[in-house]
């Protein structure tokens, strides 16, 4: 095996010829995939949840309040464990009822589900706040034009709340990305877990954790750049 000399004290050999660099990139890809899935699921939960909180009946409002309060006041690590155990338990019990053998849950799917439930609680609050910040005169005007509630929502409320929601939602995206690291505790093969394996196998702990930190940071900085553009776009034509 050819060895590549160290560059600025970084053991390039580990990344290039021993294949750990590629493994880290695959880990990053999986992390981003889980984060994206969880974010989309969280957006769906958040949209439905904020509608339920704003326009639902008393039962819907209060059970949603319970959901957001509990999720936001518990450590993510505990939530992830509880949701994972409850989720797989319930899935296997349902499968058992219909007469299928229990399954081993796919890591990425479980990660998306677990993080999506967590992100959904925060997204509910962000979207609820953004809808509340839409001037009520705009909605009243739409109603005065004879628009149906569904049309008001589609044409007025949702587009008008978007600029209010984007800063909060882009933060949620960053949180989703960073929270994927917690899945390493459950042993899912995302970036942090792959890094731990690589570091353990090569004994170059410092190098690998630093490399993973750089990858996370890069993802964050690129996300910041994109969300800034998105925010400017959503505010186009506004003062």
């Amino acid at each position: 095996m050819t060895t590549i000399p160290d560059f600025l004290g970084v053991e390039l050999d580990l990344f290039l010829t021993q294949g750990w660099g590629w493994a880290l990139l695959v880990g990053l890809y999986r992390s981003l995939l889980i984060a994206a899935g969880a974010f989309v699921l969280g957006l769906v939960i958040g949209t439905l949840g904020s509608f339920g909180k704003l326009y639902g009946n008393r039962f819907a409002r209060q059970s949603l309040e319970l959901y957001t309060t509990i999720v936001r006041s518990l450590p993510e690590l505990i939530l992830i464990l509880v949701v994972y155990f409850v989720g797989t338990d319930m899935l296997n019990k349902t499968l058992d009822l219909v007469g299928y053998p229990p399954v081993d849950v796919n890591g990425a799917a479980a990660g998306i589900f677990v993080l999506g439930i967590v992100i959904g609680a925060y997204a509910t609050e962000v979207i609820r706040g953004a809808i509340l910040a839409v001037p009520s005169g705009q909605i009243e005007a739409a109603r005065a034009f004879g628009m149906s509630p569904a049309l008001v929502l589609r044409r007025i409320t949702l587009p008008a709340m978007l600029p209010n929601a984007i800063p909060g939602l882009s933060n949620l995206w960053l949180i989703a990305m960073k929270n994927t690291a917690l899945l390493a505790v459950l042993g899912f093969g995302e970036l942090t877990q792959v890094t731990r394996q690589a570091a353990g196998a090569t004994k170059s702990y410092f190098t690998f954790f630093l490399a993973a930190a750089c990858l996370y940071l890069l993802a964050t900085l690129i996300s910041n750049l994109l969300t800034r553009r998105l925010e400017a776009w959503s505010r186009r034509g506004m003062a």
Partner: protein
Amino acid sequence: MSETNLTAAQAPVVASGRSEPTIGLWGWVILAVAFAYAGYAMRWDWLLDWYPQLIRGLGTTMLLLATTVFLGMLLAIPIGLVQVFGPRWLSIPARAFCTVIRGTPLLLQLWLLYYGLGSLFPQFPAIRDSFLWPYLRQAWPYAVLSLTLSYAAYEGEVFRGAFAGVPKGQLEAARSFGMSPWHSFRRIWFPQAFHRALPTLAGETILQLKATPLVATITVMDIYSVAAQVRQQTYLTYEPLLVISVVYIIVAMGLLKLFATLTNTRYMRAPN
């Protein structure tokens, strides 16, 4: 800007001034049903054997929280300050520090310090022979360090905004009264900035509480790691997690109460 809002979006159950929805009758009914089910269908006899360890773990968690919030605050104030008026060679590193810490997962930082630094240190005889070595071989210094740095970065960003938000006229007035820079900082700038930062402090501190269980992954015996031990030894999955969940919620509410009373003391109340 996405950066300045990071704390606002993350901030947990802090009231935002609007009339917040409450849990109400149905919420309490759901909670009561859940607790009744848990009391009836789950096993709780293990609590008798484990409660002393749980309490000791809670003590570790609280000590870790208090220490890192205090040290983090001490670091955050200069970090925020130099970003507002410091020279370039101070403000750029401060800014980079905040960006790096806030842009990477805390779990990774913790492991970088514990496994990374922990594996580098023994290579230096100077460190191995120093009086610090017995401490550096334990896990808690790394836990304290990484939680402190994390709190300092998030709160430093808050203090940057708070220092920048104090109206210029206030500082100019202080100067025209003949106050020295240090005097006007102590009497005018810092109190007003601190007052601005206080509401987010509650949210940040609860975020810090929610970050403490991560230290269990580097063998610090906090309340979460006690629950993990219970799970391993009794094969009970939900019960220990449920117990510590209730504990975390109670502690979080206590902290909110504490910060609310702190905000309402005479010194902290908004002027006028």
